[in-house]
């Protein structure tokens, strides 16, 4: 269903991405940059749904690992998206573990300092819903459902690839996606209360 748009966008670039990866693996810097520009935006969206505002930091960590292990990778463009998503996910899990061991107030304070001014939202008034809002709403889902939706919607993976990234059976991921989308529809009908990108929100709190 809704994952179509993200998947299609990803698939149109898969040939280009696969070629860029092959050239980058031979040492081509420009090819690495090309692959980065294709992969990073959806990766960032996925991470935003996992760790909220810390997505940039986590993505930066993930790219260090991606750059270091690039020579190990085997596969095409779609495979590269899945491989990078796996690496980013591991870094996000590490990050969430660190956050949970941190005193609660610290995160809250740092986020309060970055509170946006109310008029900022006016800039995107023409959009029905902003990317930020959408990702924040998906982040409200239980983590497995959120990840299943994000991997397929934002990264554009197919079901089996998403299952491999999550280390789950395809059937489990399929049903998690289904439940997640149903729940999102309910959210849209009556938006959930509570912080959206608050890292201490229940969905992220139970992350492992």
């Amino acid at each position: 269903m809704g994952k179509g748009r993200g998947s299609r966008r990803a698939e149109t670039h898969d040939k280009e991405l696969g070629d860029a990866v092959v050239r980058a693996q031979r040492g081509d810097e420009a090819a690495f940059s090309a692959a980065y520009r294709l992969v990073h935006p959806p990766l960032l969206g996925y991470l935003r749904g996992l760790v909220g505002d810390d997505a940039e930091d986590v993505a930066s960590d993930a790219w260090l690992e991606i750059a270091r292990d690039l020579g190990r990778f085997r596969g095409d463009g779609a495979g590269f998206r899945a491989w990078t998503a796996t690496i980013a996910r591991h870094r996000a899990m590490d990050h969430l573990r660190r956050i949970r061991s941190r005193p609660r107030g610290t995160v809250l304070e740092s986020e309060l300092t970055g509170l946006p001014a109310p008029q900022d939202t006016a800039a995107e008034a023409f959009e029905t819903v902003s990317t930020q809002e959408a990702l924040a709403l998906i982040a409200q889902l239980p983590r497995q459902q959120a990840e299943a939706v994000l991997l397929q919607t934002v990264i554009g993976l197919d079901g089996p690839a998403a299952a491999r990234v999550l280390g789950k059976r395809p059937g489990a991921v399929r049903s998690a996606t289904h439940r997640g989308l149903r729940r999102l529809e309910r959210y849209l009908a009556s938006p959930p209360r509570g912080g959206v990108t608050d890292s201490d929100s229940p969905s992220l709190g139970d992350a492992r």
Partner: protein
Amino acid sequence: MTENRSGDAVGPAAPPQASPQPQPQLPAESRQPTLDELLAAAARPAPVAPHAEENALAAFRAARDEGALELPTRPEDDWRPAETRTRVPWIRAGAGALVAGVMLGGFAMAAGAIPSPFADPPADKPRPAPRVFPSGAEERSTGATPPATVPAVPAATVPGAHEHPPTAKDLTAHCRAYEAAAAAGRNHGKPGGGNANGGKADGREAEGGADERAVSERLAAVAGGPDQVEAYCAGLSPDRPAGPAGEGNGPGAGENTGADAPSPLDPQAGPDKWRAPMQKPSRQ
């Protein structure tokens, strides 16, 4: 830090919404988006911060210059389609099985579990023995299967015999076999008796004994009596040390002399002579 990060990540088109406020994410006055719109918005790529790309590129350069691009692929790095992934292991498994088979075969042959073409040569081959049953048709097959039934063909009818008539080299080889057998016999208290090692009584031993007896008789005929054989052999190759190669090799004299054959102990027994029986199985 937070401002910097958010500004870089999102850019002007999508200002940061990182707010723990109750419901800031959906403007109250707008209509509710559909699920498709929500997912499309989530998939919309955010602007990429330039310094982030620089950092990633620097990491790539550093890794490349350290030779990290040569790192081996781990299973978690292999995202090729399943059929590609599985085909390679199959090929690997096949190659591995082939190598393992060859190696096991080699070990088994060395251990004597498989009839080795090296095993029966010295005693068996130059057996134009005028002794036993003149059943010439059996020669080819008995050459390969160790001679449980002793092939006793007139030398003239056997092609192998034509190629290798009894020569001094043959007799030298017979001497080696004889001495080996004698040594084995001393060890087991039964001269010339490979059978003495009853534990491994698997026909090969019996054949070895028969072969050795044939050699002994043949040598005795040439030397002029069983008692003369040792002196005859000693005289045949005076440069050979007194201790025969078969010393301590036990009842497997047939095989072991075969293995020892090309040793410098007996350069006269040329390699061609030892190789000849090897070709028999392939001719079948």
